[in-house]
């Protein structure tokens, strides 16, 4: 194993080690607990940034791969469970490493944004790290079982975190979220076992499975099963219902992690497992999935207009944005895939910023209802600006990451010349316009105008962890919006193999 491979595995080992490291720290010393967790998360940011840079250099040198084999760097490939020839395979191509980078940022800022957790901080941060370890693992795993084990780790941590530290109907929301994700996982599990036995090569290795042509009769049922299974965690209509309840009840860090990276695990799985391994099934089913996607984009935007609770608005806006990712995928064109992948990264940053600023505002005003707020910009300008930037990125303002991703998706979607796709694309653009309506209305009601409640006149200013959170996330949004070229050329190298398979 090379040093880089060890570093890549360190991304998911480090959070787990931190949990063990914190065990002996006394409960009476919450600051030490938080500092250790934040320190390890920061270290992880550096590791992933270093690896991202390294892969950028490598992928520029290697160029775009010719066949359907991904260029996998930093591979670890060791036998694991001999019963079904399960191997522990991790590695990273450009898409993986970008997602790892996104995850490390969201976890770090998530820990900072929950700095003032009220009770049982030891358990809370431990669970957050376990959740993070699972997400890192998903993005670097290249064996289906390894992938699935990491993927399911979320269920373990999610319920406990929402039900214990959440607000409102937290038990209901936590159960709903966990059970719906479990439903998706059960479907994926059946699909994975099918890939193993129907594939018939005694391997769960994604790279090997990508080479075989699975029978159409198998793909006909296995593609929708796994795709929908993954799409449940990416809140595809009509499986989105866990998302508004879950996000609104969850504590800030969990909302950030769930919307920022956990939902991306779903879209990543759709891309990496369903579409890559079963391309013929994808061609057959995509026209049907596109119809669901239309609901995602349009309904979510119109529902968000009606909601007054900030977290609900953001949750529905997330559903809409996830719909755009699916729109990019379902166009089955290269540009569409790229747009979808870019939107995965962009939305990760912007939704993390959204939820973190909402959490900060809520901790000051103790309400999330936008009608009860007014003039927040005057008393807490820093948070107000953070919220507005997140909103602008969400509605696709040029210069921020959202524009780059969404424009690419629409171009890609228009490349598919079927009538259905054309109609859907036009409708989707309408949906994006609607986004502007609710984002601007929310920002306007909440931030501007006279201060409606005298409690809001003297809100405490942003603390240092909060400032770091907002600045870091805004920097990422701007970085991606102003310099999309390097991400785009990185993604070319890892999306080409998937596209080659899709057009075989």
């Amino acid at each position, binding site marked *: 194993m090379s040093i880089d491979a060890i570093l890549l595995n360190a991304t998911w080992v480090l959070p787990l080690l931190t949990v063990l490291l914190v065990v002996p720290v006394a409960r009476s010393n919450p600051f030490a607990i938080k500092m250790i967790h934040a320190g390890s998360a920061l270290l992880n940011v550096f590791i992933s940034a270093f690896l991202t840079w390294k892969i950028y250099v490598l992928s520029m040198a290697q160029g775009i791969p010719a066949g359907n084999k991904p260029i996998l760097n930093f591979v670890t490939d060791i*036998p*694991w*469970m*001999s*019963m*079904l020839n399960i191997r522990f395979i991790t590695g990273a191509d450009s898409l993986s490493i970008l997602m790892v980078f996104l995850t490390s940022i969201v976890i770090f800022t998530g820990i900072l944004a929950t700095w003032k957790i009220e009770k*049982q901080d*030891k*358990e809370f941060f431990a669970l957050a790290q376990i959740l993070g370890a699972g997400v890192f693992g998903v993005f670097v795993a290249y064996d289906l*079982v390894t992938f*699935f*084990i*990491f993927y*399911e*780790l979320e*269920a*373990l941590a999610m*319920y*406990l975190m929402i*039900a*214990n530290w959440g607000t409102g109907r*937290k*038990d209901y929301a936590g*159960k709903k979220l*966990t*059970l719906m994700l*479990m*439903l998706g996982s*059960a*479907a994926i*599990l*059946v699909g994975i*076992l*099918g890939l*193993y*036995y129907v594939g018939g090569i005694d391997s769960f290795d994604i790279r090997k499975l990508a080479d075989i042509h699975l029978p159409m009769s198998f793909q006909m*049922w296995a593609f929708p*099963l796994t795709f929908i299974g993954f799409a449940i965690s990416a809140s595809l209509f009509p499986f989105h219902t866990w998302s508004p309840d879950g996000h609104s009840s969850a504590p800030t860090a969990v909302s950030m992690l769930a919307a920022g990276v956990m939902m991306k695990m779903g879209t990543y799985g759709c891309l990496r497992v369903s579409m890559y391994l079963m391309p013929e099934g994808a061609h057959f089913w995509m026209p049907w999935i596109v119809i669901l996607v239309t609901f995602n984009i349009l309904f979510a935007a119109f529902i968000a207009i009606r909601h007054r609770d900030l977290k609900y608005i953001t949750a529905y806006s997330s559903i809409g944005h996830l719909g755009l990712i699916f729109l990019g995928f379902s166009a089955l064109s290269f540009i569409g895939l790229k747009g979808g992948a870019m939107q995965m990264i962009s939305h990760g940053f912007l939704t993390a910023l959204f939820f973190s600023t909402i959490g900060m505002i809520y901790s000051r005003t103790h309400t999330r209802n936008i009608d009860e707020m007014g003039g927040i910009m005057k008393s807490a300008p820093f948070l107000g600006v953070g919220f507005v930037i997140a909103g602008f990125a969400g509605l696709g303002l040029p210069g921020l990451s959202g524009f780059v991703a969404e424009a690419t998706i629409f171009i890609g979607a228009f490349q598919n010349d079927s009538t259905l796709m054309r109609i859907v694309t036009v409708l989707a653009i309408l949906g994006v316009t609607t986004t502007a309506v609710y984002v601007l209305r929310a920002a306007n009601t909440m931030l501007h105008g006279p201060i409606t409640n005298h409690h809001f006149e003297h809100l405490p200013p942003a603390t240092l962890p909060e400032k770091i959170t907002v600045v870091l996330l805004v920097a990422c949004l701007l970085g991606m919006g102003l310099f999309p070229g390097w991400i785009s050329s990185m993604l070319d190298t890892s999306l080409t193999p998937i596209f080659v398979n899709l057009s075989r």
Partner: protein
Amino acid sequence: MSFPLILPDILLIVLGVLVLALDLARVRSSIVWNVSWIGVAAILGLLNLIPAGWDRSWFGGNWNLTNFGLLMREFFLVSALCVLFLSRGIFTRGEEGFAPLKYKAEFIASILFVTFGSITLVSSQDLLTLFVGLELATIPLYFLVAWNKRNPRGSEAATKYVLLGSTSTATMLFGISYLYGFAGSLRFHEIALAVSQDTSSPLLWIAVLFLISGIGFKLTLFPFHTWAPDVYDGAPTPVTAFLSVSSKATAISFLLVMLYGPLAAIHVQLQPLLMLLAAATMTIGNFGALKQVRLRRFMAWSSIAQAGYILAALTGPGDMAKSAVVFYLFTYAFSNYLVFFLISVVGGAKREQTFASLAGLTKQKPWLGAALAISLFSLAGIPPVAGFVGKFMLFASAAKGGHFAFLAFVGLNTVVGLYCYLQVIKAGWVDDADEETLAAQNNIVLSGVDKIAITVLTILVLVAGIAPWLGNNITAILQYGP
């Protein structure tokens, strides 16, 4: 040369007699307890010295040591060891308001005899030995269930268990006699030959249906599961745990031995029936668990559902089914015993064993709360804990049989199952406790044995699935043949 191979079996029965003899000699019961668990651990160690690959028989071919038998021996001894540790509590502090129980030596000896019966069953090569093993593994349980005489629930449970148990034994015997009538022999290989020559004889199918109904009782298959909640609730906690692990494993071994041995030729025709039974059992188990408030009752329904999952693996081909089931049984035993240790600790002395008594557990005793979550997530099949990998192998076995639609149904069931387990986790993690419960939880005192057992089991549940040694060793041993 071959004598040392059955030494562990002989030593086990000697140990059981020794325990009774020590009691007659009025040796202190704590010494008897120490002798018994050290003895079981030593026998387990001896078993581990036996290399895989033996296929030897003794006593005119009636007593056999196969690779599968070797693994199951180890499993039953691990289970017996766990029960011995678990039973210490009811003899020292009592539970649910009842005084500490008496007659420890007899209790221990009964456990050992049941274990010997299970081992007899997996060693059998003919129907008679099989039946003797099954009965030896059942009859001591009748009085183990009634050990707490003062508990009215216990008397009801024991009555129910004896009546229904003997009915099922009669059913089983009926089936065995028909099978004998059909094949003209009690020997497995001769029955197998007869079955392969005539797979559609009505006599054979009547025999098979009666056999499955008979074993269905012990395995709590739908529609023979109704006794389980009452009996599990009435029996002392260690006995409940023993019922849910060893007794169930005995029944599963019976099915494995029959389905992939004498009945192998009609396994394919039996698959639809097995799938139906498995699907009905897990559904009824999961939905039954939804509305429970008493922990042991809940575990009864949970174990019914688990029986359904295990049965699902039997729809696959033999090699995969055997390794999957053995592996799953280990992970299931670790998780289940861990839950029962927690129930016994939380519900010891003066406390009720209900969901409400768990409230606030995580805040008072974070480690117990963590162990509770880990064990229940394992039973629900959430990675990376052991139960997930076990379930994955079970499902893989069914997938190898090509039953994907059935698997999708099983998948739906795991979602309902997760809901049930989340209810318990919620009780321990989310629910706020009243002052009485809080005080009770502050008073929880863990004995050294409890601490060690809970720690070891928690670690096992955490790593047995993802650390490859357990599964890979099982695969390695079974690759030498059945």
